């Protein structure tokens, strides 16, 4: 499976696998293995679906109106990284540019998923499915699902880290939220209360502390893909 070629940053932690996997681990059971193989290689009939028309060149939404005036708002409110130089003269302009750029790059309101105060906010521990587009000239959809372990808020470069096991190896992928290559972020299961807006880096050392077994995530992904295919067929009819 072509997991390594994505626009997220790939990290593998094979050392952790040897410690984590017991002989009777759920990942190696034959039933789940066949499911992962299905998930890994698309069905023969789906080969035609993979070829898609090239995407047009990417442009964010056009600018409407002047840059926003953000006087009186703190960097935490605006989800901008802390600036050790304080409130210097040019900071106002750069913050306005950052906030405006985010609102223009956000095509399907996915910033609401990661804003701290929003009602649809997703917490680390939830299971996410991310659809990527490899390139704009040959846009092949690539899917990665896993446990959300961190949300890093850095303005327009805000990114999320999603962890899963692929073919027996631990894999973490970092996705910039506002990247045009990240075509869809879907919440498969919303889990709250595990960590209060913090990260779950401890999963690297303790995979058993995961909110959901990793084999279950694969099952959820397979079910989701089937559902997608069915809805597509229904719509084409």
């Amino acid at each position, binding site marked *: 499976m072509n997991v390594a070629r994505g*626009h997220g940053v790939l990290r593998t932690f094979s050392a952790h696998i040897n410690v984590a996997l017991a002989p009777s681990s759920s990942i190696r059971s034959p039933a789940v293995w066949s499911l992962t193989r299905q998930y890994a290689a698309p069905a023969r009939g789906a080969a035609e679906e993979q070829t898609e028309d090239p995407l*047009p*060149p*990417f*442009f*964010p939404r*056009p*600018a409407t109106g*002047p*840059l926003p005036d953000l006087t009186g708002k703190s960097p935490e409110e605006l989800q901008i990284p802390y600036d050790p130089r304080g409130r*210097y*003269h*040019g*900071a106002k*302009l*750069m913050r306005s*540019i*950052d906030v405006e*750029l985010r609102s223009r*790059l956000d095509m399907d309101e996915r910033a609401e998923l990661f804003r701290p105060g929003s009602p649809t906010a997703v917490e680390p521990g939830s299971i996410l499915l991310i659809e990527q*587009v*490899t*390139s*704009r*000239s*040959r846009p092949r959809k690539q899917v990665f699902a896993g446990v959300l372990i961190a949300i890093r808020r850095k*303005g*327009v*470069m805000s990114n999320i880290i999603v962890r899963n096991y692929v073919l027996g190896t631990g894999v973490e992928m970092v996705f*910039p939220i*506002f*990247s*045009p*290559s990240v075509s869809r972020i879907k919440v498969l299961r919303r889990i709250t209360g595990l960590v209060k807006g913090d990260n779950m880096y401890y999963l690297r050392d303790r995979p058993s502390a995961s909110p959901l077994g990793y084999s279950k995530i694969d099952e959820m992904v397979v079910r989701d893909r089937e559902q997608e295919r069915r809805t597509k067929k229904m719509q084409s009819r």
Partner: protein
Amino acid sequence: MQRLPQLPSVCLGTRLLRTTTATHARNSRAITPFTAPPSATGERPGLLHLQPAPAATYPVSDGAGPTPAPEWTSGSKRTGVVALKKGMTAIWDEWGVLTPVTVLQIVDCEVIRTRWHAGCGSYIVELGTVNHPRLHRLNKAQLYHYRRWTITPKRKMTGFKVSPDACLPTGTKLVAAHFVPGQYVDCQATSTAKGFQGVMKRWGFKGQSASHGTSLAHRSLGSTGQIDPGRVWKGKKMAGNMGNDTITVQNLRVMKIDTENNLVYVKGAVPGTDERYVRIKDAVKKGWFNKTFPEGSKVPFPTFLGDVATLPRELIPTAPASTERDPFSRQRREREL
């Protein structure tokens, strides 16, 4: 040690109490002034201050005829602009590639005058940026200069060499729309000062080993030369003040232009810290291959003289040409391997 050859007694100059007639004759012969041979036309080639200035074209009618509207050619040299470095951010370009950009803001940039500089043999567009907030801090020479040309006194005054068809009249306002999105520029600024730094940081020397008997010389210079000439060469790399130099970064692409706030988004990094002056001008090296401006773009020549309100708030480069390769596509050679 080999001794240096004896210098002739002439060089000792005033120390000699007596000069022989032969020495005196030799000295007087050595000081004859140079006279260039006269040319057929009567001019003296090679002496710039005696060549007449070529005729300059200003985009302003002199009352005699119509307003000249010069066209940009590959031989023309436009003026540059002085901007303030505001900071850096990231945008995604037309291919979806994450691009770091520097935001440069053009603040109150006005042409003071265009003058012919014989020393460098070209016209210079003198311009100033950032209106000075405290006029009592300017000295008389500066104040009277601004008064003579009726320009608001500025904090920074500099000049750009231009070709005769790119001269600008006094008071022309330079804006971000002077640049074409997708063009290449050279950015020049004073680099961040790092203070007194050692050779490892300043010149990238490797230092010496951390253990194995090295005493008190882990980050030091080591040897400073050879037995011959038995001295240290001029310009030997040593520790000293690092940074605070004028650095030019070439061939930076203009990713976006904001006409309302006069911002130029330039791909990559620019020397210096925030709120410092940056000289931006069209890329010189790309100009050798006629690649400074994107194909088919209209270059505002000599500068953008229209109404900024008619332009959209943001100008972005046009879609990439069909011949350009998608940076995310894998080449066939890679795939075969």
